[in-house]
């Protein structure tokens, strides 16, 4: 009979998730300023294309993918108004660094970011958050540049 190796599955720390905005530190967000959904980060596109040929596939790696970061920010704190004011002034915020809810997963950098949406949302007294959507560029397949 096989023996269960009991490899540790690790832990998540949901209050570790945070976002740094180096160009505008007043926008920095940590867990104390987020709703229950905290934040999410998605790469929106494929890392490359596989183009079908008559007899196989041609790989074509992409130099970048579009990234979307959604943050659930508390409207009941001053920080939501700072994000709104930032969008009113200029929605371009440069680089963001997203620190995940795991200590063993690296921080993710998204470049050339813009605040795409900062919607106040429902105001029925039951919704304490605003939804901020940030989009930017994630550079991938960096080894492509070694072949130029």
């Amino acid at each position, binding site marked *: 009979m096989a023996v269960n190796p009991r490899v540790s599955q690790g832990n998540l720390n949901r209050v570790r998730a*945070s976002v740094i905005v180096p160009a505008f530190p007043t926008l920095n967000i940590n867990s104390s300023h987020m709703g229950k959904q905290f934040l999410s980060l998605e790469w929106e596109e494929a890392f490359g294309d596989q183009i079908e040929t008559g007899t196989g596939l041609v790989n074509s790696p992409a130099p970048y993918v579009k990234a979307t970061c959604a943050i659930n920010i508390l409207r009941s704190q001053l920080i939501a108004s700072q994000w709104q004011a930032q969008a009113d002034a200029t929605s371009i915020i440069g680089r963001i660094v997203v620190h995940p809810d795991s200590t063993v997963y690296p921080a993710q950098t998204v470049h050339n970011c813009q605040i795409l949406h900062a919607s106040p949302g429902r105001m029925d007294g039951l919704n304490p958050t605003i939804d901020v959507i940030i989009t930017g560029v994630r550079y991938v397949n960096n080894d492509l540049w070694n072949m130029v």
Partner: protein
Amino acid sequence: MKIDDNLSLVFDVGACKGFSTPISRAVFEANFKIISATKAALFYGNSSAVVNVSPVIATLTLKDEGKKIADASGEDGDGSADAIIAEIKRLTLIMVSGASGWDMLPVDAAIQSGAMDAEEWQEALSELIFFTASYALARKADRPRAAKGVCAITGLDTISLSAEEFMASLETSKKPETTGSKAGSSVPV
């Protein structure tokens, strides 16, 4: 305070560099009672005590004054002391030197990474609170002098660069940051 001054603070903490943006006018106005009470307590006494002791006990003084404010109003709280500390922590970035250059971490992540320890952060935090208390209540014309005075007796220094520019200025012999750890594999050809 920030009050639209283009000023930030930099300091050494452990083996790292700290970069802190002063609190906003809105935060100051929401917490002016505890900040002003803290300044009054820190600057009470002779100048030797202010120079040698006040920067070290600023965090404790903030908490103490917050407790007094809460007690006076019959509340069971800290008078927003922890909220101000959290705000200063949120506005502070720690530049950590790594294999791929300087990295910018939140305070908690920097402590967790071992780049600095909690005690070193507490020392820096106390100086940041000392700066906040003295600078926030200075008149606009007096703020540069207030900042200069605080920096002379603490490990803080003022800077007009952004966090990105400051980090770039640190990169003297390291490779610039990449978008992530680089995989060993090559792109298929």
